[in-house]
């Protein structure tokens, strides 16, 4: 009887508490260790378009930047973007032209960055309690503490548009879109290498483009 009492008094509440804590917290995996592990490359294409018929392309010598009015764009990585695109487009067997009238496809690159801030608030649970009379509302809890961190992200979007489309139309069909997104953290050299690698990946996962 004493054995049973001790078992019930000690072990059962302990197991109950452990399970309640586990259920409340769940588990999360460790975050990736390297900045490049946060890079993402996405491509999509018009399945009905004949990419095999493309012989020439026009690639403007500037990258479009999406920025707020009055903000000076960051053009540090524009050369890497344009050079990587030209290299990959040439490797498809396409010929670059500067004459819009003779281009089969127009390739446009757009870049933008974003500042992100994440805050987590931790409240002291025991400091919060309801007012006794509901019409008067509850009492505010004791303030906890807030932890914030910020990070920059950058995106490059590459779009291919058929040169023969009607540019006055409300909807302009895109034949292929490649997008990359990642953290704008680390040295400029590191970011440049990652941009080149991700643009290469866009074309590596798009074998249907090749003549």
């Amino acid at each position, binding site marked *: 009887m004493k054995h049973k009492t001790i078992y019930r008094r000690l072990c059962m509440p302990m197991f109950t508490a452990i399970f309640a804590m586990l259920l409340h917290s769940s588990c999360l995996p460790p975050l990736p260790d390297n900045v490049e592990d946060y890079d993402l490359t996405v491509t999509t294409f018009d399945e009905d378009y004949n990419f095999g018929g493309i012989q020439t392309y026009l690639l403007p010598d500037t990258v479009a930047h999406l920025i707020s009015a009055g903000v000076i764009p960051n053009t540090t990585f524009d050369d890497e973007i344009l050079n990587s695109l030209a290299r990959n487009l040439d490797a498809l067997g396409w010929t670059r032209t500067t004459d819009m009238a003779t281009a089969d496809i127009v390739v446009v690159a757009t870049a933008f960055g974003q500042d992100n801030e994440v805050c987590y608030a931790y409240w002291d649970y025991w400091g919060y309690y309801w007012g006794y009379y509901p019409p008067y509302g509850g009492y505010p809890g004791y303030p906890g503490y807030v932890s914030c961190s910020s990070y920059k992200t950058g995106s490059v979007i590459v779009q291919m548009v058929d040169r023969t489309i009607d540019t006055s139309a409300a909807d302009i069909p895109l034949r292929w879109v490649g997008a990359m*997104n990642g953290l704008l953290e680390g040295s400029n050299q590191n970011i440049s290498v990652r941009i080149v690698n991700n643009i290469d990946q866009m074309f590596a996962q798009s074998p249907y483009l090749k003549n």
Partner: protein
Amino acid sequence: MKRLFIVCMLLFAGYASNAQGASEFTYQMSIPGTGEFGDFISKVTWVGFTYQGRKMLSDEQWSVGGSISWFYMVDEKGRTTYERENVTVTGYVTTFTNIFPLLLTVQRDFKDPYGTVVPFARIGVGGAWQDQRLDTGIYEFKDDDIQFAMNGEIGVRLNGAGGRNGAIIAATYHWMPGTDELLDTNFFGVKVGFGGIH
């Protein structure tokens, strides 16, 4: 949904601690099954715990009760390329899930439950709250829901002197049919632990 499950589990644990019968606590390693869940989690996982309480019937080789469990499964897939229709995505992918089954169980001991070696079989039926998540880049894709859950086990209890407490070794299988939010989930397991009759 998750809070409802916490309440149900606490109520169950409170009841089980006062029931006259048997209880056990086990640790489980899990092996994902086949199908989409086997693709979602493709590796053996090492986090799984179950607490169970049972009431013995007039024929003490039969007992009924319930169990609460927690399984955490993670698969760091590394840099992976996925295709769906005309969209291709490449990124560092990690998939993981937390599963909390709450089951009603029926157990059959194939020998005297107070013997030295007691083989048993057990089935469980109930529900499970699951949270399946896929992280890639700086993005996460998360779904959670409550699923129907079933479980089957065969094992053996090795009782010490007195025949009331002992070690447990068992093989298990869990199945939860898919919902609109979650994949059909199935996995095998090997569990070890200790239990007692009180």
